């Protein structure tokens, strides 16, 4: 497996950093090398928040990357910022609930997923991040969905434990949406 | 035949080294040192005491006390003492600081040590002037007082007012014993010793931050005689820095020392 770089980007509060950590835990538990690095500082709440996750079988050099293989864009500013940076053949998953435009790039795998609507259907709005991750595991199968679920189960904060079944449902629905649309 | 018995009435405290101090004639640092040494002897604390010397005339205090000592950066003695006391809570830790050290450059350190209720003892020598650097204006210099950096007399409009540390530190919730005494005559020296004793007693009882401010002389930089220096303390300094008990923890009241 080549090194895979993932950027998860959205508004503060959308759970982008935690989604990245779930991928990092899943990678580690699957015996892979991984780095997770957040944007940090005063923009932590309300502004944009993103993290970079690099997954590899080899020791990882740079924890940061200009052209991420995979982008999970949870809002429009993130689509605008990263659409052009995904390399040819890369993956862009965009939360179409929060914007109304086409993805211009034709040389990448892109998916418009109405993550907020799906989350509302499940019952809580905080699931957008896991819906996006679920879709990603279908489009870029570097980690089995079960490994992500296991990592989520083991690392979800205690106060959110009661939402675990809904988080699983979110992962499944994201995966299924990608399968159906892709 | 008349038989006589010799009685020792005065000797070098055990807590002192056999070294002549470098202090000027008429300076009260030597008296303050001796009072501390006597108190530590009387309380049997010498072998567990760690002193923190300042920057200033008393920078070499550690040469005169026969006990473990460190020498702090200017003003930072309360921080160093905090660092030591927190890892050696069973030891007795005291700082010895002048007015420039404690009330100017080390203002943050002394205030916060008191606010935290650090269980340390501070001996504060207030002689209203910077001694070691050659007689410049101190934060405690009296209004109108001439120094090498206020050659026309301290103009409070330009340079502010003297700071009364005992009064300030007494209002900190973390302090347990805060008093001001003077070293200008025998009666006041006795009272000063009693205060130093109570300050160390406060520490031994875990009552929090304790400080004894001692009004002290500096005939060299005041440029007056030793006798006039003592009168200067009595007539000029005490009205600005009133002697008194600013805070005494109830646990110390009635303690006979």
């Amino acid at each position: 497996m080549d090194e895979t770089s993932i950027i998860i980007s959205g508004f503060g509060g959308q759970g982008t950093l935690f989604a990245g950590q779930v991928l990092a835990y899943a990678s580690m538990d699957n015996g892979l090398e991984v780095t997770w690095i957040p944007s940090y500082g005063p923009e932590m709440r309300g502004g944009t928040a993103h993290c970079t996750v690099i997954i590899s079988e080899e020791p990882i050099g740079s924890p940061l990357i200009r052209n991420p293989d995979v982008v999970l864009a949870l809002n429009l500013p993130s689509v605008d910022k990263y659409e052009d940076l995904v390399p040819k053949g890369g993956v862009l998953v965009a939360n179409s609930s929060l914007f109304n435009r086409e993805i211009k790039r034709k040389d990448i795998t892109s998916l418009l997923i109405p993550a907020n609507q799906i989350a509302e259907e499940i019952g809580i709005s905080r699931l957008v991040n896991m819906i996006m991750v679920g879709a990603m595991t279908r489009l870029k199968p570097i980690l089995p969905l079960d490994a992500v679920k296991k990592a989520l189960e083991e690392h979800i904060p205690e106060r959110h434990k009661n939402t675990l079944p809904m988080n699983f449902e979110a992962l499944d629905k994201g995966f299924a949406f990608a399968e159906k649309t892709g | 035949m008349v038989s006589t018995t010799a009685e020792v009435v005065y000797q070098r405290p055990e807590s002192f080294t056999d070294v002549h101090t470098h202090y000027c004639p008429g300076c009260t640092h030597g008296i303050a040192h001796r009072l501390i040494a006597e108190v530590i002897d009387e309380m049997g604390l010498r072998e567990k005491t760690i002193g923190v010397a300042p920057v200033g005339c008393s920078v070499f205090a550690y040469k005169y006390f026969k006990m473990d000592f460190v020498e702090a950066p200017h003003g930072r003695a309360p921080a160093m003492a905090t660092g030591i006391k927190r890892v050696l809570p069973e030891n007795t830790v005291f700082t010895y600081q002048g007015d420039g050290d404690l009330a100017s450059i080390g203002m943050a350190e002394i205030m916060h040590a008191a606010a935290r209720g650090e269980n340390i003892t501070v001996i504060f020598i207030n002689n209203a002037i910077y001694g070691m650097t050659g007689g410049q204006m101190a934060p405690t210099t009296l209004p109108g007082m001439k120094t090498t950096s206020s050659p026309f007399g301290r103009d409070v409009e330009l340079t502010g007012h003297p700071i009364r540390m005992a009064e300030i530190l007494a209002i900190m919730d973390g302090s347990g014993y805060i008093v001001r005494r003077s070293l200008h005559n025998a009666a006041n020296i006795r009272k000063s010793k009693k205060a130093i004793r109570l300050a160390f007693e406060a520490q031994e009882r875990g009552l929090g931050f304790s400080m004894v401010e001692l009004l002290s002389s500096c005939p060299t930089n005041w440029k007056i005689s030793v006798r006039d220096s003592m009168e200067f303390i009595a007539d000029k300094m005490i009205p600005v820095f009133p002697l008194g008990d600013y805070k005494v923890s109830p646990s110390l009241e009635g303690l006979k020392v």
Partner: protein
Amino acid sequence: MAKELLKGNHAFAEAAIRAGVEAFYGYPITPSSEFLEYMSSRLPSLGRAFVQAESEVSAINMVYGAACAGKRAMTASSSPGISLMMEGISYIAGTEVPAVVVNVMRGGPGLGNIAPSQGDYYQMIKGGGHGDYFPIVLAPARVQEAIDSIELAFDLAEKYRSIVHVIVDGNMGQMMEPAELPPMKEISKEVPDWAVTGAKGREPNTLTSIYLAPEDEEVTNLRLLKRWKEIEKNEVLYQEYQLDDAEILVIGFGTAGRVASSAIREAREEGIKAGLLRPITLAPFPQERLIELTKQVRRILVVEMNSGMMLDDVMKIVKGQVPVEFYGRMGGMTPLPDEILDEIKRVAANKGPGSDDPRDEWIPRLEGRILGEK
């Protein structure tokens, strides 16, 4: 012990606890505050000392006090806070007591920003505080290395009665990586014979940095210098990557070194024989290894997150034997692998002579890149 996914600042702090740190005194500053927060939650329950001081000035002097008491003491801060600590650091060096200072570096000068930087190289490596002294400086680049470097820092500090700086940039403090923590070490009961602990049944100890007679201070300075020469001989650490047949030598520390290793991997795929020397001890610098490499490589590229500070040290060692070039980002910018790859390609194609100051050629290249990024 199994690997855990650990955040740099937390891993650092927990590693210090397991290495037996007995006192942590600090002051909040981004991006190192998590270090302080972590210590505040762990140390009191272990019966060890923690104080959030009123300032960095006070914090370092608390460390100084605990170090004088013979305890493993440390602080962690970030660039502006480290500037404030320099007074105490100089006193610690002058008193010859061991202490560890972690600097999670950010963009500067002045208030600068909170983004990752290596702009404190001069301040940390060349002393920073006043007077003649030689700090040991470790620059880990991975979370595991950060963990390992903390215990090493204490060991070196005690072995040489020296100040030891562990410097990383904000990336390292915030990054999570799988790493393994060492088991909890028992706190040493041994009290150094120089420590102030109360003069019970022995002559008093005094710890001071004052040597009023210049003759005495000179002897002290000489002692520190000779000790430093020992450290230079014994304690050099570095990591090599793809150096065996390298023609282009890239030198970078911390995050810049890591990023360079990614670029080197890609350069190799394109047939460029590049390799990396990543100093882990910046002081002492891996001088001998660099001298050896100057006999092997055709050209050197120094990569840093500052204006070329380690570059000066490299130039001094290389002595013009091999052309040296420079690429840096400043102000809290982290270079990305593609930038360094571009540089490696350019350097590999450059047959020209070296320059007295590689910054002269770098400045317009950087200006071009900044324009391009806009």
